[in-house]
Each structure stands twice: as structure tokens, then as C-alpha cells.
């Protein structure tokens, strides 16, 4: 239903998600970028309102400005356009563990209401039903980047009451669980889906809907989420994508599609 209304207004729910996610970022952010939707959002931010943002991919590329979206975190385009490229140990030691990253922007296969992420396994670890890729850089990004933004499509399979494996720690079981682990970073600070924007409750740290995308009603959000959804008392509507944002996004996707077809 939400998707239909979005189409009438000539943009898709996916486009709304990427653009809403891009608006979270600022020019002075130093952002560790996950592949997929996070990478699209970060580059839209760079190409619109945050031209000076520093984008970092875990392959070691610092201050990169790709003309097309990379298929992997290590495409040549990232290195060609980067300020500098460092080794992988240096990336994780000096830059991430060293506390120089303000935002970690992640995707997730499975997430719970406290922003804990599973990208490891569906079923048990020892005899999995589906073996997923695993954590990669995410376990340390989740604990060492200043704060975490997450972007993903909503579904009953992806937004669940209990994740099956704690790949990357969010707010644990809520409240001061991060402090109890000795973490000084903020952890998950925003979740941007194809239906809504969520932020953690200041006390319980449970994700709470603060904005519904245009045309979305609360029932849509609940129908595509495995936990009982809480809505902020003052929730409002996400501003629609501007023509400029849509143009930049579509041009980027078009360039990307062409590039990946030929190379």
C-alpha cells in the first residue's frame, strides 16, 4: 500500500529509504561505509548536502568519492578517487580502533529492537539452516565508531523479536547495556527503513518510530516488523524526496548499472 502511494508520487519506497538515510549525514562526518544501501545513502549525501563528508571503506580507502557505486568494498574506483589508501591492519587499528570514525553506516540481514545485528547464521551456529557471510568489519565498527546508523528494508524475516546470533552488538538488552560492557561509543542512533525512521528511546534504547515516510500508516510498519512497534508521541512525516535528490540518486544508479554491465 505504501509502495503504491509512493509510486503515484513518482518515487519508490527504496528511493525514499536511501534519501532519508542520506539526510542523516553531515559534511564534517567521517563515515565508515557498508556495502549496498549504506553505500548508496553515503554517496547521495556526498553528492547533495554533504559535499565534504569523508567516506571510508574497509578496504583501506580514505576520503573516497566514487563516480559510480562500487559492487564490492574494494572496487578500483574507490582507490582511484580516494585521498589515500592504507593497509587493512592500519584501517582497523589506527582509524577504527583509534576512534577516528564518527559514523558507522551498516546494513543488516536480521535486527532486533535494540539494534543488535545478525549477519552470521539462520538456525544454530553448528548446524545452520542458512549460513550467512558473517561479521567482516561490523563487530568492531558497531563498538568503535562514534555512532551507528542502520538502513534496511522492513520485513517479518529481517526485523525480529530475537536475532539468532549476536554478530554485532547494538544496545544489547537496552538501557545501559553498552556502558556495562565498557563501551564509550553511542551505538545505534538511527534506523532508516523503507517505511520509517526510527531512533532509540533515550532511556530504554528501544527503537521507536519518529517519522513515517509519506503515505505510510502505522499499521504498515507493524505489519512488516516482528516486534511490537512503539511510536514516538510526536512522530511526524518524513519530508518527500526533492527533485534534486531524486535526480542525483537516479543518475548515480544509471551510471552504476552501465559501469557494471561493461566491466
Amino acid at each position: 500500500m505504501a509502495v503504491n502511494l509512493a509510486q503515484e508520487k513518482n518515487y519508490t519506497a527504496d528511493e525514499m529509504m536511501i534519501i532519508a538515510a542520506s539526510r542523516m549525514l553531515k559534511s564534517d562526518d567521517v563515515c565508515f561505509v557498508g556495502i549496498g544501501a549504506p553505500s548508496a545513502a553515503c554517496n547521495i549525501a556526498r553528492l547533495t548536502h554533504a559535499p565534504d563528508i569523508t567516506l571510508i571503506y574497509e578496504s583501506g580507502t580514505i576520503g573516497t568519492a566514487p563516480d559510480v557505486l562500487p559492487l564490492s568494498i574494494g572496487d578500483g574506483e574507490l582507490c582511484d578517487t580516494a585521498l589515500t589508501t592504507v593497509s587493512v591492519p592500519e584501517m582497523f587499528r589506527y582509524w577504527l580502533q583509534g576512534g577516528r570514525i564518527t559514523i558507522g553506516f551498516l546494513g543488516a540481514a536480521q535486527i532486533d529492537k535494540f539494534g543488535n545485528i545478525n549477519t552470521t547464521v539462520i538456525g544454530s551456529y553448528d548446524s545452520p539452516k542458512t549460513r550467512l557471510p558473517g561479521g567482516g568489519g561490523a563487530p568492531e565498527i558497531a563498538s568503535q565508531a562514534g555512532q551507528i546508523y542502520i538502513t534496511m528494508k522492513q520485513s517479518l524475516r529481517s526485523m525480529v523479536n530475537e536475532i539468532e546470533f549476536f554478530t554485532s552488538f547494538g544496545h544489547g538488552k537496552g538501557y545501559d547495556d553498552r556502558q556495562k560492557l565498557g563501551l564509550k561509543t553511542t551505538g545505534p542512533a538511527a534506523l532508516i527503513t523503507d517505511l520509517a525512521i526510527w531512533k532509540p528511546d533515550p532511556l530504554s534504547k528501544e527503537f521507536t518510530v519518529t517519522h513515517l515516510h509519506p503515505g505510510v500508516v502505522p499499521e504498515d510498519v507493524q505489519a512488516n516488523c516482528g516486534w511490537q512497534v512503539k511510536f514516538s508521541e510526536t512522530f511526524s512525516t518524513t519530508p518527500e524526496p526533492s527533485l534534486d535528490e531524486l535526480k542525483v540518486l537516479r543518475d548515480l544508479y544509471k551510471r552504476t548499472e552501465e559501469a557494471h554491465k561493461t566491466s
Partner: protein
Amino acid sequence: MANFTSLEKAVDAVMSDGVCVAFEGFTHLIPHASAHAVIRKGYRNLTLVRMTPDIIYDQMIGMGCASKLIFSYAGNPGVGLLRRLRDAIENQWPVALEIEEHSHAAMANAYEAGASSMPCAIFKGYAGAELKQVNQNIKTIHCPFTGEELVAVPSIQPDVSFIHAQKADKKGNVLIEGIIGIQKEAVLSATKSVVTVEEVVDELKTHPNAVILPHWTVDYIAEVPGAAHPSYAQGYYDRDNAAYIEWDQISADRTRFQNWMEENVMQQTTDIFAKRVGFLAKDKLSKKSEH
């Protein structure tokens, strides 16, 4: 001391059943030709080490070369899951595969520790992460000065490491450029190393801070143009993204996978790699011929 030889002779010299072997290259410069040479020789019970297994280990695992995998991200980058690796973990096909799973930070630290001749790596990591519960090689220690809780993992010191690089000079000094990943650490942490290069040149003509492996740190060098395909070599040819996308289909079915491997790996020789990158090289081949 670097010996220039064919890739096949280098593989014979360093490999045997049951060894611990790393093939590194972080998206860039992945040593595919070396993996295919190893697959053709039919080695078994290998412990494979690699941060990002991707297609190269999907092929080795699917062909039954490995009994153990040490890794930190097992996906087809930007495409999806690794279907042969999944089949081995979920269904023990073609053979059972033991896994030792880490995060990227842990593997990077462990290689660096291996290159530094340290028994273990110490870092901040795995906060609240469940891998600590399923991997006995992730331990907690305390800083002797501040008492701060830290993580330790064993260093990685493979019997053999394979990497690919852009150039070697005639003495055997190796130059790596672009996304340099973990290749320097992979070679310096290993007992033996094999480096394939795009070309051997008279002089590296580089700058003072270039990433160089001196000739006395490398055991074997083989000149194999195109050896990274479908990965890429910065300055030579681009990543064959279409091949990564196609792999998702090829690897989805056991028979299709076996047929593809028979045709494209078992019945081929190392020379095929130069032909595979021709269409990706754009204007770069002419640049190469100037040397």
C-alpha cells in the same frame, strides 16, 4: 631468495596435502591463477586462511581441497552468499568443512602479529559479539598496566601464502599498489611464499614509500598476466563485475559448478588468464607494452 619459475613448479615446490595455506588479496589482486593451479594438482585436507573467502575459496572448497577454513567474511562481495561454501557447511558437500570464524579486525591483527613473529595479537574487539562463544581461539586478557580488558587471538603464520602483485624487478623485488589489503603481512607471516606478477620489469621506478616486498622475503615469483581475474590489478585491468554476478548462478547447482570447473579450470592452463583480461584492459595494454 626469489626464484623465478613457472607457477606450476612453484606450486609443486611449496604445496602438499594438509598444509595451512593463505591466498590473500582484499577484493583487489586476488591470486586466482594460483588457486586454479593448486586445484588442478588435487591437494586435499588443506587449512585455508583468508579474510574474505569469495569466489576463489568457493571453488577450492567446492572441489574438495579443504578440511578447514579460517575466515572473517564469507560472501560474494556485493552479490550475495557463497553457495559452495554454504553447501559444505550446511550439507558437508563434497566434504565436511571445519570453520574458525573471526572478525576482519581480528584477522588483520593476527596476520600482523604473524609477520611480527608474535604468538598472538592483542586488540580491542568482539564487544558483546557472540563469536567469542563459538570460537575457542578468541580469549580475553587484561592490560598489565591499566587492567583494561582486551582480546587476544593466535597469530596467523601459514605454511604457504600466495599473493598477486603488479610488478617484480629482475632481482625479484615485488611492488604492490592500490588497495594493498593484507598481502604484505600474508607473505611476511608465512614460511614459504609464491607471488604471481603482471609483469617483470628492469626497474620498478617507484617512490620512497611504495609497498615493496624485498626479493629476499619472497620464495617464488611467476609472471602470470591476468592472474587476478575476475578480480583486478590496478593499472592493468578492471574488476570483472559481471563474472562475480554470474558466479552466483554457476555455483547454485552442484552439477553446473562441476561442469564449469572441468571446462574452465581442470582443462585449462595458467596461460588462459592473459586472454581472460584482454577485454577488461581498455587502454592499459598499450601502456604495458612500453616497458
